[in-house]
């Protein structure tokens, strides 16, 4: 363990000096739990959430170009689901981010969500801190986009963009989960398709129901690149909202808690006992928590 920590520290050092190979290996190291000493300073992070296929990756591709022109270095952590059946994953977000492959100032890392609820692995925060210290000034996180659990993104990103499409109905999930309420930015994509205007109207209606609503609903086409500059300027000029701190901490707490439980070495055994009725859910929680504490995790 000490050896691995030393290695993480070394990787971090050379990543900070601009070595890309080390940066990439550092991400792997963090993923496997070997985390270097990080300053955990505030860093610029944006979560992008919205239903599958709404255009999150395509939009990120467009935003990359805008931020590059402004002199930023853009890092993207793109999450895709792990198959619960095979344990494997098909990570294809970067296919839609062609712009990413053209510049050294862009770093894209695809991440399998693993067994975590909400599809947010709890080491994501450490990855962001490390990227920030290595000089990446725009750090974007694309979520899996599966509705209610996506709220976990608020535990890891300082600001969140909710992306909707012309086909409403998906967004109802986000609305129920409180994501619409919490999102810092809201945009409707695919303005080149019919129905996008009415999606904007529908969202405005939902938002209008709450008083003091100041957020604008952006209309963009990630395919044609329209409306992006305006969206970027809204994002860049937004002060981060510190009243969210408690919500952020809450989501982070829940997701770390979930992952302690889900990564419990005996979880399958407990599930079997629960199925056969030999223990109750309360029994299971009590003894799992006791085991977690005694292992000092």
């Amino acid at each position: 363990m000490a050896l691995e920590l030393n290695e993480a520290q070394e990787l971090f050092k050379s990543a900070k000096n601009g070595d890309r190979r080390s940066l990439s290996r550092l991400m792997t190291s963090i993923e496997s739990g070997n985390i270097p000493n990080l300053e955990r300073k505030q860093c610029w992070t944006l979560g992008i959430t919205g239903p599958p296929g709404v255009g999150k990756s395509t939009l990120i591709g467009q935003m990359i170009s805008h931020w590059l022109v402004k002199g930023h270095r853009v890092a993207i952590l793109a999450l895709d689901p792990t198959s619960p059946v095979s344990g494997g994953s098909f990570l294809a977000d970067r296919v839609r981010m062609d712009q990413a492959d053209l510049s050294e100032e862009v770093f894209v890392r695809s991440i399998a969500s693993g067994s975590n609820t909400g599809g947010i692995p709890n080491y994501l925060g450490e990855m962001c801190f490390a990227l920030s210290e290595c000089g990446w000034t725009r750090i974007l996180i694309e979520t899996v986009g599966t509705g209610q659990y996506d709220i976990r993104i608020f535990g890891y990103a300082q600001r969140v963009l909710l992306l909707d499409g012309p086909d409403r109905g998906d967004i109802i999930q986000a609305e129920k989960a409180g994501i619409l309420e919490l999102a810092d930015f809201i945009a409707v994509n695919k303005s080149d398709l019919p129905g996008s205007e009415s999606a904007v109207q529908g969202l405005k209606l939902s938002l209008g129901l709450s008083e003091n609503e100041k957020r604008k609903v952006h209309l963009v086409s990630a395919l044609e690149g329209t409306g992006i500059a305006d969206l970027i300027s809204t994002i860049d000029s937004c002060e981060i909202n510190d009243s969210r701190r408690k919500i952020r901490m809450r989501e982070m707490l829940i997701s770390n808690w979930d992952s302690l439980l889900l990564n419990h070495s005996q979880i399958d055994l407990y599930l079997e006992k629960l199925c056969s009725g030999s223990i109750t859910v309360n029994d299971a929680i009590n003894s799992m928590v006791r085991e977690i504490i005694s292992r000092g995790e």
Partner: protein
Amino acid sequence: MRIVIAKPGLDGHDRGAKVVARALRDGGHDVIYTGLRKTPDEIVRIVNDEDAEVLGLSTLSGAHDSLIPKICQKLKISGLSNVVVFAGGIIPDRDRSDLHNSGVRAVFGPGTPTSDILHFLEEVKSRKNKHQEVGVGQDPGWHWN
């Protein structure tokens, strides 16, 4: 394992590459797909940034005899000698040994059952566990087929 599936060259068909990618996912691997028409430099950067252990190159356009050796070469000079490379697509038998010489560890023709590729990956894994060299820039002694 983390595997990048890439399509160098100019042809615009990626059905085959996607079928392979999905099969590897179903075999329990994390598969990163790059999309079409990537240049050797782009592919090498992707393999680096994704910290992949394995790179699968799919080609139809006869790009194998120039592009694949070029990619292998660039991997070696970018500190990625331990990445395992395999190739798939229409590759004439007579070109295989050149590819092996470049560091490619397996060549799969168009009709290959995907289970073959999974077996190859298992073999790679067990060799790696035994600290035997299987990377593109390592001892070229072994190849799968």
